[in-house]
């Protein structure tokens, strides 16, 4: 063991991490979910405009297990969860590691609002298992985790906290900038928040709202300013999905990224996928929350720089 690696600095956070992982598993097992493991090395990643998959030989390390898990959902696995390592290139910062841990789960018959309720239950369950109770203290903020979290539409969040409207931000390609720098810091205290109803272009695998096809049935969870999870009602229209992937690939090409091959087996399967909702939650960030950590570096055994 090299002398620059200090266990003392991490010990407590790593204990919290182990407890969080254990609690997540018992929550899903108690709700009759099937724990699954899908291959981390896949022939091609999903075509998404802003994600860089890392190559592994001729194939790729999965940026998320979404592709395989949805094929399982289509094959009749109605409630599944997975805790897996995922990999994304060119992502490194206080909240990003190129290798990170994702909890992803799917529930047939749910829509995104029903899934939000399950998220509230999950956080309360983990809090109970850790014995931290509510309110939670994170970065000098007090967070009340009890149910009925705030629900805020993206458009309204721009009106309330942004310097310009959502429409203007989209037109000027400043959507992410306003969201990350002006809006996010306000979200998630004193109660956690679900930011929901994204512009369709920001939910390439989400179902469009029936009453407003410009809006994707997608949400993100924010707790104490920290973005923790991305969930949505699943799109199960293969034709529509193919068209959206083509659009994503167009953006990839414009930005100098190689287009991804069409995931034909996935497209063939999703038309058999039941109405369902699914979500991916950053486990490292959830541990940050319970360990009161400012950086993702504090909650993993090693960062890439320490290897």
């Amino acid at each position, binding site marked *: 063991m090299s002398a620059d690696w200090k266990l003392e600095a991490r010990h407590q956070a790593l204990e919290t991490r182990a407890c969080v992982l254990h609690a997540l598993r018992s929550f899903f097992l108690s709700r009759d979910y099937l724990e699954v493991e899908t291959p981390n090395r896949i022939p091609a990643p999903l075509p998404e405009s*802003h994600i860089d998959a890392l190559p592994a030989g001729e194939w790729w390390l999965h940026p998320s297990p979404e592709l395989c898990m949805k094929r399982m959902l289509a094959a009749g696995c109605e409630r599944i969860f997975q805790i897996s390592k995922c990999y994304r290139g*060119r992502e490194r910062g*206080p909240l990003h590691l190129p290798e990170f841990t994702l909890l992803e789960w799917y529930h047939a018959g749910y829509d995104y609002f029903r899934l939000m309720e399950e998220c509230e239950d999950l956080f309360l369950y983990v809090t109970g298992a850790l014995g931290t109770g509510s309110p939670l203290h994170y970065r000098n903020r007090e967070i009340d985790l009890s149910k009925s979290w705030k629900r805020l539409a993206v458009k309204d969040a721009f009106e309330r906290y942004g310097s310009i409207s959502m429409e203007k931000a989209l037109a000027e390609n400043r*959507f*992410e*900038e306003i969201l990350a720098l002006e809006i996010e810091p306000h979200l998630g205290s004193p109660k956690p928040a679900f930011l929901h109803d994204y512009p369709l272009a920001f939910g390439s695998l989400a179902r469009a709202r029936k009453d407003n096809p410009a809006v994707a049935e997608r949400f993100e969870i924010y707790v104490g300013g920290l973005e923790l999870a991305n969930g949505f009602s699943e799109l199960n229209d293969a034709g529509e999905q193919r068209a959206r992937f083509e659009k994503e690939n167009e953006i990839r090409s414009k930005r100098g990224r190689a287009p991804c091959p069409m995931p034909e087996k996935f497209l063939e399967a999703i038309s058999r996928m039941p109405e369902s909702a699914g979500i991916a939650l950053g486990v490292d960030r959830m541990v940050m929350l319970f360990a009161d950590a400012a950086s993702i570096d504090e909650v993993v055994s090693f960062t890439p720089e320490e290897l």
Partner: protein
Amino acid sequence: MYSASDLRKNLRLMLDDEPYIVVDFQFVKPGKGQSLYRCKLRNMLTGSQMDRTFREVDTFKPAETEEKTMQYLYKEGDAYHFMDNANYEQIAMTEEQVGDAKNFLIENMECKVMFFRDRPIDITLPNFVDVVVTEAPPWIKGDTVSGNYKPVIVETGYKVSVPPFVEQGEKIRIDTRTGDYLTRVKE
């Protein structure tokens, strides 16, 4: 050309036709969106700082700066004269351009001069310089309490705090990055 993903601390780049250096940097990426790169930048001509957020589509030219090893020759009036060791060409810099480096410039010393479009904008000195103490209050024998420092003046006119045993005519070593006394130099 640099792309936004090349941004990191100490990268030098051109913005609005002026050279900047990245002094602080943070990667931000809202879920599934494009990456943002929040930077604090220092203008290498004016020294002023600014915050700017870049997106992954942004590209930059490297700063048109060039560093040359030069020899400091002498000071005449307000002008500091240097010679390029490669071609013996001479340049003069004003006191303002030399900045704090003037405190440690000794004749014939080698240093690195940064140019922007043939205009000298910054000097990097060796980390340590040895200078002669030209003025020092006398050492009161027995005064050896550490932390009990006295001010002296060195050959460049720079004033520095030293331990009481340092006497006029002695040589001392100074860290040019902090301006602090390090040790006495015995020859």
